[in-house]
């Protein structure tokens, strides 16, 4: 069981590494923000899989909930900031 969960964690890390292409050379700033939001959503699944691996899901679930709330608030705040910003 532990070996299978480790394999799943490696798969999730490979999937998370794909949108970094869009973070590094996205044409606009919104592409970068969108890719960062997608990475943050996938990291929640990664945290819960770590909870299964260490057999401590009670602790990692609270961390994942806090991470989800922070991801949502940061996405909304940065969207509003870049909507109101004037182009120089």
């Amino acid at each position: 069981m532990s070996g299978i969960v480790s394999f799943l964690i490696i798969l999730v890390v490979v999937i998370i590494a794909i949108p970094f292409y869009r973070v590094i050379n996205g044409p606009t700033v919104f592409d970068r923000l969108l890719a960062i939001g997608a990475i943050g959503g996938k990291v929640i699944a990664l945290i819960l899989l770590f909870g299964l691996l260490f057999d401590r899901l009670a602790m990692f679930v609270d961390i994942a909930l806090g991470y989800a709330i922070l991801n949502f608030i940061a996405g909304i705040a940065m969207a509003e900031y870049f909507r109101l910003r004037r182009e120089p």
Partner: protein
Amino acid sequence: MMQLVQDIIGLALVLLGLVFMALGSLGIVRLPDFFSRTHAASKVDTVGIVVVLFGIAVLEGFTLDAGKVLVAAVFIMLTNPVAAHALARAALKQGIKPWRRNQAPATPPKD
């Protein structure tokens, strides 16, 4: 026996969610403009994360932690499309033109 069935169902759900997450990541990289990338980042990724969380809850069993995982799944189901929609609305107000078939592409297609 019951434990084996539970493990098989949970691992199948997690693998199905990983397929959806991989398709969402590829869509973010490959689609031609920002507004079509929001489709990949909101819908496909939300389905992938929620199915992975359901699989983790099934693997955990009938406990309080599985209930907390389901609460996190409902929260992601509510908030992830809202964040992508806010970003798309901000981009449209900022003046980014949507991509059309018979015009020059806004971003040159890269491989």
